[in-house]
């Protein structure tokens, strides 16, 4: 795997080719460049030994024989595709993260070609390619060995008289070197394209999986809702006195489910704010309920299932209040409040609905058996809630205690006005 692939531009580079050539080898260089096709996406680095620094002639040769850009290397230059970077003479140059570093020669450790090849091998791995044109004599053997070990390719010209057995991949005439290099780079580009395509395929199929899972979840939700609606219809019918009575009750319950679906589907995880849930239910029945109702409690987030169950229960309490309770008389009042019961082993949300000012109350109303069943049996069953519903002098009192868990979540400890 190639190292030093930083930006998008760098990953587009198919290979980094160091070409080492003596000043006397310009003929080989011309042959090499004239054999290269356009658009290989390789970055070329040219090291000319004995080169005085004037690149006017080189620029002309390369420009005439190939479509490549020519750039004398400056400190911190980045490798660019389809560009020939010309290393400065009498300096030690290296590559780090695809950028050039130039320093003064210090001592006599390694030659400039070996130094650069070592950093090239280290920085670019199997993306590195070393080409020695014309006789360079001894310099380069050390660097080419490192490049070979890093998985790079080494090509040298026939006329390079130095024996580099076991290092050189191909010993060829200059024009054949460009052919060999071309096929190597084209092969690498194809491999890159194939890898990108397979990655793209993986991405596509994982997206499809994701969509299938989402659709499965949605299907499950919809079918469950239909089953709940079926049950609602049956239960409402059992208790209805006539068709008109059935329609009124059933529509009310269906609307309550519709309202909660609206809020639940607004967020991906299906979250509902408890205060909003209470508000939506009340305002669905009494446009200006605020004169008669106080709502207060800390910020609580409910997930879809507790939200659905709780909203149906609140719907039943509200319709009862509108027909027979606190909202049926101007003297009536409801206090809806909730607080956290912070027992360490069993933290709970205590929700309370207390009606006052109702002059006459049926102590054991039979008519609203469904709401009672939902509160006394449905909530304990679905939400592990403890509930109590009393029809007492002055109005209804309902207490529902829900365990705080990953579906009933405290968002803010105190209500806006200090909580209860």
């Amino acid at each position, binding site marked *: 795997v190639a190292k030093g692939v930083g930006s998008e531009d760098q990953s587009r580079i198919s290979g980094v080719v160091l070409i080492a050539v003596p000043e006397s080898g310009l003929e080989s260089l011309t042959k090499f460049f004239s054999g290269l096709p356009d658009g290989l996406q390789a970055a070329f680095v040219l090291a000319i030994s004995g080169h005085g620094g004037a690149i006017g002639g080189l620029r002309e040769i390369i420009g005439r024989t190939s479509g490549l850009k020519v750039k004398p290397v400056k400190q911190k230059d980045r490798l660019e595709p389809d560009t020939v970077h010309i290393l400065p003479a009498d300096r030690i140059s290296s590559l780090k993260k695809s950028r050039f570093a130039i320093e003064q020669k210090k001592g006599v450790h390694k030659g400039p070609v070996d130094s650069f090849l070592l950093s090239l091998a280290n920085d670019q791995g199997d993306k590195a390619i070393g080409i020695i044109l014309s006789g360079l004599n001894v310099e380069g053997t050390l660097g080419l060995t490192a490049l070979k070990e890093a998985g790079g390719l080494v090509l040298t010209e026939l006329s390079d008289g130095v024996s580099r057995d076991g290092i050189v991949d191909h010993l060829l005439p200059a024009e054949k070197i460009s052919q060999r290099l071309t096929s190597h780079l084209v092969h690498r580009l194809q491999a890159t394209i194939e890898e990108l395509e397979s990655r793209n395929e993986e991405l596509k199929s994982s997206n499809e999986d994701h969509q299938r899972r989402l659709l499965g979840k949605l299907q499950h939700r919809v*079918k469950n809702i239909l*089953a709940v609606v079926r049950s*609602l219809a049956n239960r409402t019918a059992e208790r209805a006195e006539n068709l008109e009575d059935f329609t009124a009750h059933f529509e009310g319950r269906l609307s309550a489910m519709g309202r909660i679906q609206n809020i639940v589907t607004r967020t991906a995880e299906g979250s509902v704010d408890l205060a909003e849930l209470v508000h939506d239910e009340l305002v669905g029945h009494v446009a200006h309920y605020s004169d008669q109702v106080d709502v207060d409690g800390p910020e609580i987030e409910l997930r879809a299932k507790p939200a659905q169950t709780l909203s149906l229960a609140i719907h039943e309490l509200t319709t009862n209040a509108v027909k027979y309770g606190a909202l049926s008389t101007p003297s009536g009042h409801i206090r809806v409040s909730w607080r956290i019961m912070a027992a360490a082993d069993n933290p709970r949300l205590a929700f309370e609905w207390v009606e006052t000012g109702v002059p006459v109350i049926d102590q054991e109303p039979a008519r609203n058996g469904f709401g009672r069943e939902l509160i006394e049996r449905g909530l304990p069953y679905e939400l592990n809630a403890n509930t109590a519903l009393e029809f007492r002098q002055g109005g209804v009192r309902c207490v529902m205690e829900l365990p705080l868990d990953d579906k009933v979540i405290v968002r803010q400890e105190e209500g806006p006005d200090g909580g209860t």
Partner: protein
Amino acid sequence: MAAHEPMSLKDKRILIVEDHYLIAADLSRVLAKLGGEIIGPVASVEAARAEMAQGAVDLAFLDINLNEQMVFPLADELEKRGIPFIFATGHDGEILPERFKSKLRLEKPFTVKSVKDAVRQLIDSG
């Protein structure tokens, strides 16, 4: 029992595992009308095990997804004990592990007829 005879679940002890109260209550009523004795209903695998420890169960209706907990371990236990069961589900068959793909399914939302048909098939195959 042959398919054309009037079907009765008389004296059959039927375990219902379903996390929605209203659906569980609905299914309980339908099965009770067919003569069954309802065990539960319960909303979790643990609660189902507790019921099974209390007494015999002749057949079971299993919702697949119980508050994000899958019912399959319970299905394996029922299988081991030779107790017939039906998956009552809103999912199509795709979510079922290979070993349960051939099992009876009751599609939600069910009707009295679809519950009867499922029970009849279960009894016939047993």
